[in-house]
């Protein structure tokens, strides 16, 4: 096969994998178009988290942090094992974040000689490329100590969360504003109608019925934008310098049997190979080719006018004077390796030693239903944002500091924005690492034998509650309470208002034996800014210590009414 054909195949592969990844994120949503049996659980029609389960870094890191490979994560061997033989093909052919970095790096700029020269220079191997190995070792060290921080930098988790919680919501809002602007008085009427028609078509493909908007996405957005912009300074800076997944695959490519063979005799040092190199791995004659840095994009071979470069199985390793032997290993120092590992291992106890992790945890830290205990949660959550995206009520959001620095961008339920739908188990269905268990409907809602899954408990703020503080009737929290019997119960009282008139109304109370902490009451409370009934995490099923009642057996149905 001609090398140009192979390069074309690579380009097709990049577009295809990126599209599939993007499509999977789009499909990570509750769709009105599927109609299951109303009796049964509402299931997602496709395994939308499969892309994240293919990620070997997630597999390795969660193996270290939890001692096991969770369900679908075994799929990551599909990437890891071929890497052992081929090298970092994933980075050049598959990784959607890598492809995005590739494309942004390659947006054409003016081809003046100086810029080409600068580019060639920047594509030579640089010492900063070692940083990614230290990042990897640091994060693996933290994983060993039980704190999974890998998700912050893992390219697939990074891209999934950036597309899902930043790009798509912002795109939706932007498009809507544009349409309403076009339909406004600036533009003649037919244009507005056309714009609406165009929007309606885009909407059915790209936007869900209800676009979720997320807490604190500015930090996520800035991080993502930074990663993208750096490509314009150094080609694929993220992939070369920071990406811990690339580093892991680099380590695993040590014994690969596929590589670059250089024929010194043909080379006239035009440096076209360097000009097009993605990995800064020394493809030119005269440099040592670095296997662990190469993305196997094959640009160098395709660019070489002399046919001096060829990728093949079992390449000839013989060195000549002009052509040093390829470097198979990873160029890192022992001292820095030990330092990174030790720092990583020390990281978890360091950030957990304060009061915030256990004793003084934020009472507002409500985790999704089915979440495992906090310590294990932090050993599993990769911050991919899939749970936030799939939640039909927009209830789940990235944390800022509610779960400490350690839990940055992990999911938190904000009941004021959306409550937890009792019959819904979608967040557990999409979680790729088992941080949120996939509950059955009975486990979620409970029945006469099984207690329902609790994510917290509601408390009434009598100083803000209309019937308690303001002699004004209101029963909205009770009306919305989804448990049967209702966890919010009412007691009729006659109170006096400011004019001295007596008013008969019903004041709400909570039965903590029935309350699941879903937050429907907080969501519906008419006191808009800070609800008069609020959910905190105490009583959550996942914790053995965050409790307050001695006896919490579910009450029998007949005991009231």
């Amino acid at each position, binding site marked *: 096969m001609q090398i140009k054909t192979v390069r074309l195949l690579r380009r097709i592969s990049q577009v295809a994998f990126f599209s599939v990844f993007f499509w999977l994120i789009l499909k990570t949503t*509750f769709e009105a178009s599927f109609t299951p049996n109303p009796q049964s659980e509402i299931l997602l029609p496709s395994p939308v988290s499969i892309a994240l389960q293919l990620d070997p870094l997630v597999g390795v890191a969660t193996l270290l942090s939890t001692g096991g490979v969770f369900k679908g994560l075994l799929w990551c061997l599909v990437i890891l094992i071929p890497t052992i033989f081929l090298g970092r093909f994933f980075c050049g052919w598959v990784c959607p974040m890598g492809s995005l970095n590739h494309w942004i790096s390659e947006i054409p700029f003016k081809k003046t000689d100086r810029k080409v020269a600068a580019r060639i220079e920047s594509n030579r191997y640089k010492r900063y490329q070692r940083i990614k190995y230290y990042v990897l070792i640091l994060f693996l060290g933290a994983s060993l100590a039980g704190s999974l921080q890998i998700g912050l930098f893992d390219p697939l988790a990074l891209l999934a969360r950036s597309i899902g919680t930043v790009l798509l919501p912002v795109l939706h809002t932007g498009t809507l504003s544009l349409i309403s602007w076009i339909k406004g008085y600036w533009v003649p009427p037919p244009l507005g109608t056309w714009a609406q028609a165009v929007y309606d078509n885009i909407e059915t493909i790209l936007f869900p019925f209800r676009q979720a908007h997320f807490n604190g996405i500015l930090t996520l957005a800035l991080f993502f934008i930074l990663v993208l912009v750096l490509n314009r300074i150094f080609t694929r800076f993220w992939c070369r310098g920071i990406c811990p997944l690339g580093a892991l695959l680099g380590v695993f490519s040590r014994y690969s049997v596929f590589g670059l063979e250089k024929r010194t005799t043909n080379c006239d040092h035009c440096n076209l190979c360097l000009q097009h190199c993605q990995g800064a791995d020394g493809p030119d004659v005269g440099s040592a080719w670095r296997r662990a840095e190469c993305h196997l994009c094959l640009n160098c071979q395709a660019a070489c006018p002399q046919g001096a470069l060829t990728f093949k199985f079992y390449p000839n390793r013989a060195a000549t004077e002009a052509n040093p032997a390829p470097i198979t290993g990873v160029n890192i120092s022992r001292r820095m390796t030990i330092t990174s590992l030790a720092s990583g291992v020390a990281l978890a106890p360091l950030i957990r030693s304060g009061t915030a992790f256990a004793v003084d945890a934020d009472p507002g830290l409500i985790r999704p239903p089915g979440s495992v205990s906090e310590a294990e949660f932090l050993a599993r959550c990769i911050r991919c944002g899939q749970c936030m995206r799939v939640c*039909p009520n927009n209830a789940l959001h990235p944390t800022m500091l509610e779960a400490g620095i350690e839990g940055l961008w992990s999911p938190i339920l904000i009941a004021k924005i959306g409550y937890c739908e009792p019959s819904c188990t979608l967040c557990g269905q999409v979680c790729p690492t088992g941080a949120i268990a996939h509950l059955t409907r009975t486990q979620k809602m409970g029945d006469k034998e099984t207690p329902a899954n609790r994510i917290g408990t509601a408390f009434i703020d009598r100083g803000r509650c209309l019937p308690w503080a303001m002699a004004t009737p209101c029963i909205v929290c009770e009306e919305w309470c989804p448990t049967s019997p209702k966890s919010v119960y009412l007691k009729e009282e006659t109170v006096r208002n400011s004019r001295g008139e007596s008013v008969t109304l019903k004041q709400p109370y909570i039965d903590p034996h029935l309350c699941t902490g879903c937050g429907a009451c907080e969501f519906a409370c008419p006191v808009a800014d800070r609800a008069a009934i609020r959910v905190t995490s105490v009583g959550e099923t996942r914790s053995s210590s965050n409790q307050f009642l001695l006896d919490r057996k579910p009450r029998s149905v007949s005991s009231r009414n």
Partner: protein
Amino acid sequence: MINRREFLKTTGQALALAGVSAGVGVLFHNRSTAEYAPIMLKTGDYRVPDDTQLPRLTLSHNEDAMVALNRSLDAIGGIRRFVNKGERVVIKPNLGWDRTPEQAANTSPILVGEMVRLCLVAGAAEVIVTDVTCNDPRRCFIRSGVRDAVEKAGGRVILPKEEDFVKTVIDGKMISTWPVLKHFLQTDKLINIPIIKQHSLLECTCSMKNWYGILGGPRHQLHQKIDQSIVDLAAFCRPTLTVVDATRVLLRNGPTGGSLDDVAKEDTVMCATDEVAADSRACEFLGLTGDHVGHIVLAEKTGLGKVDYRAAGYKEVA
């Protein structure tokens, strides 16, 4: 020193910019402080002429909900009395919650589907079913089974979207203007299909309370003066026909329910042209009488119908 050409050019540019600035300011100057939001002046009156020969409330008891619906509907004049050829019909079930039909928190899908079919048989050009639900509308329409039933019958389900609410003059004592879902305002006929449920503030929620479901905005505030706001809405929204779903009645833990222990199977369907009479009869399923239920009494006082449904014209059919 500048030469004459430069002087004229610079001065001209400055004058042009000044002119444009002043022009834009004057053009967009807005003296009034009135709100920009469009206010739709429209009544929600979709009634057909009263017929003294016919009862205003009919009730049929049958294990087959479709039979019960058809018999009670025929007794009040049949579908052709209410729907004419080529009309657009909007059906308003109560689909507030993410619940299954057995839990009796939502209107029965059988009744909604059959009603869609009947309207189409009568020649309706389009039958739309929509509701401003409490829980997520996608889940409510799917789990209630109504989406399936409507689409099978040939009707169209429209889920409420934020941009589809129009600020509307309700002109009531409590509610002067409020955002209303536009589909309820842009139709020829409107059919209300509520379900009977216990409600801790109202005692009984049925036909008139169902109009909360046309509203957007902070509608939970309305509970503070619930009787008056329901009557305001009922005075604004006069449906062509009311079909009361009493196939299952939610006795406790309403309006959400959840447990089958809360549900009584009654196998009854009522049709009404008098909502007050319908609600008055409906609350008897919960062991109440209309003259003890605040909003029903207030509705009669306002002239919306009769609490004494027998006096209004009541007929039970087999």
